[in-house]
């Protein structure tokens, strides 16, 4: 297998369960320091693909490698990937640090210092001494992230990592994942139904449906900001389209409410609008291009 420089580089991955094709020729790559999001409806094949990449399932066809380990039926080796599964499970009768020590003991690469460090990083150091059976869903999720990153794997495969997290937890999770990718150079593959989260954290998004890759793009890849404006005077809409940096305008819902695409940053746009004499009632960054693409491609509400 030729090394491509990618952490994950798989081609034509197929997985058949009886008569059902869970994966039907998926191509995917993940580079070092890259955060890739997998989105798609339930049953699209996201989790199956993640299981194949993490080595718990053996695909029925396809080629390529994960961290230099070939995929394909009959493979013997499983790559060392930081895995976070949808429903985090640990030894319920032990506390969080003991569970991490137990798992870290398999590879024997890290000590208690590193375990304390990751517990603090995921915000669990204070509550970690309780038995896992008494953990909330959010605490389990944080512990699961801790075990995934503690041995500094080159690749993280995370299935619904923000499940059960409160808003603070989601923000922290986002920062941790970006940190792993940027600072450590770790490749991250995330599956989530929270499109805004995927858009916020991912460098590239892969849309999967019925076991196939339907689309692949970079959120904000054009470099253009999408913004919703509410004007104090609906008659000033024509002034907006004439402003510097405004590429397109589209009236939505009611008169005076516009979605615009701009080639300049939001603060600069505000200055341009004020200079043009536009009286702005409210301004919002648009909910997300990903949601639009998802609706368009999948053909149903996200």
């Amino acid at each position: 297998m030729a090394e491509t420089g990618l952490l994950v580089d798989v081609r034509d991955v197929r997985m058949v369960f009886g008569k059902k094709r869970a994966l039907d020729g998926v191509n995917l790559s993940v580079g070092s320091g890259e955060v890739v999001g997998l989105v798609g409806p339930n049953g699209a094949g996201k989790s199956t693909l993640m299981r194949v990449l993490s080595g718990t399932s053996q695909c029925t066809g396809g080629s390529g490698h994960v961290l230099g380990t070939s995929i394909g039926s009959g493979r013997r080796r499983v790559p060392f990937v930081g895995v976070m599964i949808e429903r985090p499970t640990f030894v319920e009768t032990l506390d969080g640090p003991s569970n991490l020590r137990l798992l870290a003991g398999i590879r024997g690469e890290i000590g208690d210092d590193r375990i304390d460090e990751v517990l603090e990083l995921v915000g669990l150091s204070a509550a970690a001494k309780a038995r896992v059976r008494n953990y909330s869903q959010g605490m389990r999720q944080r512990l699961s992230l801790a075990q995934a990153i503690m041995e500094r794997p080159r690749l993280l495969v995370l299935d619904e990592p923000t499940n059960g997290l409160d808003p603070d937890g989601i923000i922290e999770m986002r920062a941790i994942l970006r940190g792993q990718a940027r600072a450590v150079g770790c490749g991250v593959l995330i599956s989530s139904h929270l499109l805004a989260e995927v858009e916020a954290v991912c460098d590239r998004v892969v849309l999967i449906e019925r076991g196939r890759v339907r689309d692949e793009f970079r959120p904000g890849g054009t470099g253009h900001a999408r913004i919703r404006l509410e004007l104090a005077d609906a008659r000033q809409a024509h002034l907006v389209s004439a402003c510097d940096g405004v590429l397109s305008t589209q009236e939505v819902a009611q008169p005076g409410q516009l979605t615009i695409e701009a080639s300049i940053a939001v603060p600069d746009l505000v200055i341009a609008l004020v200079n043009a004499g536009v009286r702005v009632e409210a301004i919002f960054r648009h909910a997300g291009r990903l949601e639009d693409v998802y609706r368009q491609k999948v053909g149903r509400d996200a």
Partner: protein
Amino acid sequence: MTIGRMMLLELRRMAVSPRWGIVGAVCLIAAWLAESSVRVAAINSHVPAGAEDVYLATANNLMLVGCLALPAFALVATGSLAADRSSGFVTLTLCRVGRRSCVWIAKVVALIGGAFITQLVLAATSYMVAIYAGYTPSYSPSALALVPISETSMSLFAPALPGDDQTLRVLAAMGFLTLAFSAVGTLALAVSVRWPNEFLPPALLLGVVVFDWLIVRFSHLGVFDRISLSAHLLESTHISTLPDSMSWASSVAYFAVVMILGAVGGWWLLERYDV
């Protein structure tokens, strides 16, 4: 070495299982029932019983060993793989250990350790019950075991020969049952690779023991005895002075073959099925 550390992980996980409480309770019940039997045998034969007799009576009663201790052991030792698969914990271990075969070997080693600990618990509870009931431990051969079975109405005891060391007999019985439990436990664990339900192995073992006992009890098929689990499981079937007794070597070989079949079958299944 990764596989060694994986074995330690499995042993530590099994050690903290709260199900050991069930094993302890089951062994206590088995020992208590066996003590009653020994008391009756001692009264019938007018020969005093020793503390070892209680353990050997426990170990040689199919209902106590096969229907209580064996499923209780399976609940602790064989439930882990099936539970790991349904919970996803095996994903966390597999990616660290790197090979499915390592996961399997670690599980089997932990299971053997569990079988040994179960025998220790069974022996310890038997001795506790015996001492509580007033029997005393002794190195000398059990007087009760030397009484003809026709007089005690029981075939509970190990090959009893004058000069046998009782402690050695107890240790031999423990070793033999460790092998037997490990062998059938591995086979049940292999089945759970294909059908991952943590309650399947204990239910399967209980079903096999009862079915086996029914065939032996009502069919009187001499040939079946050679492959019967219950016929090989109990030490009392190896009493050389009894007609149709089996040799120790044949039973050791029987369980060794079952062990190998289970280990190879489980490894084969684990390499082919998703975890």
